[in-house]
């Protein structure tokens, strides 16, 4: 029997806001996503990608061109696959899957997601801890488990701070990320530039690089050699492209980033992921490769055994430790947020902050184990393939069902377990294993698996009754969404968001200072690269660079944070004043009414 409007309204009122569809007024502009994606995809783990290139044996042109192709494909995936579904659904993936797949599928998926993103968050925190441990003097953790109580304490503290930040919610997370984004971009760019002369000197005996040809030779002789450490031919351009594309399957094809992109005002803002893809996975990876190779040459070690903290130390000095910590932390924040959302999908009656805290306990424990960080790459790669069938199921229900006479949410409407989704997932995994065993290129596994899942699900869902008549149920669903959005709009009208831009002189001055600081740091890194005719001059420049980097970092965070806080205070004051005006208007109206009466 259909529910009444009142019943629906009551239900909506009791539903956690995170589970409600995003209203138009809650959506954000491009700038929001530009900063968010930069911070998440420029992380401490980028430092280890130099080692990845050595292990995989990629050549320089494979890297330069392959990464462009792969990251472009990732951006297109975000724009064309993820964002339209996210904006159309207006809810997170977890919520959407719950609506489409039902309780069983949703819980399975969310449980998997909680583990995966919790593990990634833990890995990022451990990376940060490996840098901090140098500062406080704890020994290196060479085992997969912690071997020193100090490291455990350190990991627990870092993880706890992360959990608390995430528990405050998306806006706090985004705010912090927007502060870190520009600085991280500068640090990763500058780090590579600063160590290039050292790298050149280790190969050619001189610190100068005489043109593009020599740069290619140096890159080829050090990190992008084209052969693996075992002496075998390395991966080529298309493998590199696949690697770059597959690195974020979890978030694009597997639709995890619906959580963020549902807030996009326009579909085209899916292109804002370019800051993360092109900068984080292109510039930062290549720069990290050079930083790693130079550090390896300086220390006579292999790039594959260097700790991120050591690489950052040689490239950026004390600012390097901060980079590793911040880089790890911002990504940990985002992953823990996702893990919290996923856990909420398993326990929908719990508020998100609570599920985040519970997941956070697991993250705190896992962060103490270097085993997680050391298996980071296999983790994300396999996780992507394992979860992409669910992306296919959702794609099918969202885009294809209505074209094929099938009804979205059919299993919920029917009140049955969505066995087709479960079976599709299992068959897709088997399919992935099968073609992988047959030698299908490893990094492209997600593509045929995704397509397979769509085809299988369409077939199975139709057989299970997705083509039935659900007119009444669909009407109620539409009404629910309509009422939910209306409730949000009414709430916004009663307390409309007060849009105010901070144009005060002080804030503008603060902004100018941190921008100039970034420019100064970047400029000096170019000076180190281009004005080091000999090793002595280079070492002088590098020492000066270390001072500039740490000083600039302190100035940057001080002024950027101050500007952020001023903006928030100004916004709060504006809202208070607005409320006061509204309150005065209401009083006046009330008085008028009394007088007239």
């Amino acid at each position: 029997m259909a529910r009444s409007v009142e019943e629906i309204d009551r239900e909506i009122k009791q539903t956690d806001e995170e589970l409600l569809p995003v209203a138009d007024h809650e959506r954000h502009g491009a700038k929001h996503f530009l900063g968010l994606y930069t911070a998440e995809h420029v992380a401490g783990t980028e430092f280890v990608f130099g080692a990845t290139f050595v292990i995989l044996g990629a050549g320089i042109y494979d890297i330069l061109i392959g990464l462009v192709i792969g990251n472009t494909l990732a951006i297109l995936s975000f724009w064309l696959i993820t964002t339209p579904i996210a904006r159309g659904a207006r809810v997170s993936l977890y919520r959407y899957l719950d609506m489409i797949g039902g309780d069983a599928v949703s819980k399975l998926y969310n449980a998997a997601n909680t583990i995966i993103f919790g593990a990634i968050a833990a890995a990022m925190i451990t990376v940060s801890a490996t840098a901090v441990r140098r500062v406080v003097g704890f020994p290196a953790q060479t085992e997969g488990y912690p071997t020193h109580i100090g490291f455990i304490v350190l990991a627990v503290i870092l993880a706890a701070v992360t959990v608390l930040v995430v528990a405050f919610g998306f806006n706090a997370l985004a705010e912090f990320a927007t502060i870190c984004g520009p600085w991280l971009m500068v640090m990763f760019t500058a780090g590579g530039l600063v160590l290039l002369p050292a790298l050149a000197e280790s190969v050619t005996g001189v610190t100068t690089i005489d043109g593009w040809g020599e740069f290619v030779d140096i890159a080829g002789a050090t990190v992008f050699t084209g052969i693996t450490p075992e002496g075998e031919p390395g991966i080529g351009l298309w493998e590199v492209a696949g690697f770059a594309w597959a690195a974020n399957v979890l978030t694009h094809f597997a639709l995890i980033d619906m959580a963020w992109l549902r807030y996009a005002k326009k579909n085209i803002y899916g292109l804002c992921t370019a800051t993360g893809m092109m900068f984080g996975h292109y510039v930062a990876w290549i720069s990290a490769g050079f930083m790693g190779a130079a550090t390896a040459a300086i220390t006579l070690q292999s790039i594959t055994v260097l700790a991120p903290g050591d690489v950052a130390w040689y490239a950026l000095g004390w600012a390097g430790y901060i980079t590793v910590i911040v880089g790890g932390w911002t990504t940990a924040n985002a992953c823990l947020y996702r893990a919290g959302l996923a856990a909420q999908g398993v326990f929908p009656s719990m508020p998100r902050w609570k599920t985040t805290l519970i997941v956070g306990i697991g993250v705190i424990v896992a962060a103490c184990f270097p085993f997680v960080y050391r298996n980071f790459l296999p983790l994300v790669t396999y996780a992507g393939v394992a979860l992409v069938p669910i992306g296919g199921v959702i794609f099918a229900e969202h885009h294809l069902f209505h074209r094929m006479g099938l009804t979205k949410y059919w299993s919920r409407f029917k009140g049955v377990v969505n066995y087709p989704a479960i079976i599709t997932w299992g068959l897709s995994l088997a399919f992935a294993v099968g073609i992988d065993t047959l030698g299908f290129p490893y990094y492209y596994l997600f593509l045929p698996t995704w397509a397979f899942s769509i085809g299988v699900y369409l077939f199975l869902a139709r057989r299970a009754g997705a083509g039935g008549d659900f007119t009444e149920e669909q009407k109620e669903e539409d009404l629910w969404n309509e009422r939910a959005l209306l409730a949000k709009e009414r709430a916004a009208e009663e307390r409309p968001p007060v849009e105010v831009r901070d144009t005060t002189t002080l804030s503008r001055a603060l902004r100018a200072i941190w921008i100039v600081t970034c420019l100064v740091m970047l400029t000096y890194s170019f000076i180190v690269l281009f004005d080091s005719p000999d090793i002595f001059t280079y070492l002088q420049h590098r020492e000066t660079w270390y001072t500039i980097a740490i000083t600039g970092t302190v100035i940057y965070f001080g002024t950027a944070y101050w500007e952020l806080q001023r903006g928030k205070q100004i916004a709060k004051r504006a809202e208070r004043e607005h409320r006061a005006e509204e309150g005065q208007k209401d009083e006046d109206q009330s008085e008028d009414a009394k007088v007239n009466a």
Partner: protein
Amino acid sequence: MQTVRRVVAAGSALAVLAGTASCGGGDSSGQGDQTLTIAAVNNADLDRLRDLNQNFLDQHSGVNIEWVSQSENELRETVSTDVGTEGGRFDVVTVGTFEAQIWAEEGLLEPLTDMPDGFEAGAFVPSIRKALTPQDEMLAAPFYGESSFTMYRTDLFKEAGVEMPDQPTWSFIIDAAKKISEETSADGICLRGKPGWGENMGFVTAMAHSYSARWFDEDWRAQLDSDAWLEATADYLELAEYAPSTVTRNGYQENLKLFQDGECGIWVDATIAASSVTDSEESSVADSVDFAPAPGAGENGSSNWLWAWSLAIPSGSEHKDLAKEYVAWATSAEYIELAASEYGWANVPAGARSDLYENSKYTDAAPFADLVQQSIDSADPTKPTSEPVPYEGIQYVNVAAFQSIGNAVGQQMTDAISGEISGEQALENSQWVADRVIERVRLLEDQQGSD
């Protein structure tokens, strides 16, 4: 819920299967022919070893050798990667005493224990064996070793009225070089002026150590602003005045050519040069060369250094037993005989085995052999100078950062030679470089020390 559990279990199994299938990279060793991959520095002695590999192959059927030859810098990069990752690409690598000591600390080289019959660790020159045996485990076998000594032109000494003492001092060398420059048509001395930690700084470091100068004190504070360094540098710069005009571009190879062409009266450098300067087919002054110990600075000892190119087995090698067979063969007396029969006794790899110096066939062909042996035997890298030091090495400091420090200081010395800066300024700059770089390195290594 039961259904969900079953699905989860099946999914987990599939994921594990996927992981296993994708991770698998089959080990193809142990089947059929074996290939021994060797990374070697590209110098004459090792090139000859490569050319004589057939002899080893004749004794080991079913074995192939893949030889990778690279320059020193390239080799360090390549071998660092293989050694550090335990990648298993190489089975035998040539390592200098510098990197052997550094990698030995990291446990990256296979101890040379359970070696095949024929491997005679006791036959190696004691000082070199000691340098390659940290913590009582031999980690590399010397292929050839060298020290440094003085090579001089007897005809020019006679012309200039100079007589070489049994143990020359740096003061004597300076005076002799000056006289030769003034009294003869040749330059007084061939000198390493080319910047580099393995070029001019190898010479300068050994020289400075003989003046009781040290790079770092026990607390790793740079000491290049000491009086000893000032004195050594001043003498080095004075020597440069009597060197050919191309001195700032001259390293070992350039000086070898100059000396062979009769351009210099004195050359203090690696003992390995001796056979080349006395080879009449290469050297125009072969009959006019004599030898003396490396100069010292009076009571503080001589400046003769110690270096060896050795054969080591990376821990990641998949053919360790075969690699040990190869190392044993290449460093054996049998190999020496083989090299002698092919290339003459003067061209056998010297300085590694003590018994070579008891072989009259060698000593007859190499009249400098006794002095070379004495130079090698008397070089003690553990005590490079009379002052206490936290490092080892006579012509280098055995930390990885010395590469960049040495290169930077070498550049300062070269600039001082060319007059761009004074010797004092060069040392002041060098002090700054050494201090800042080692501080950065030591901060990390102090933490590692607590591991």
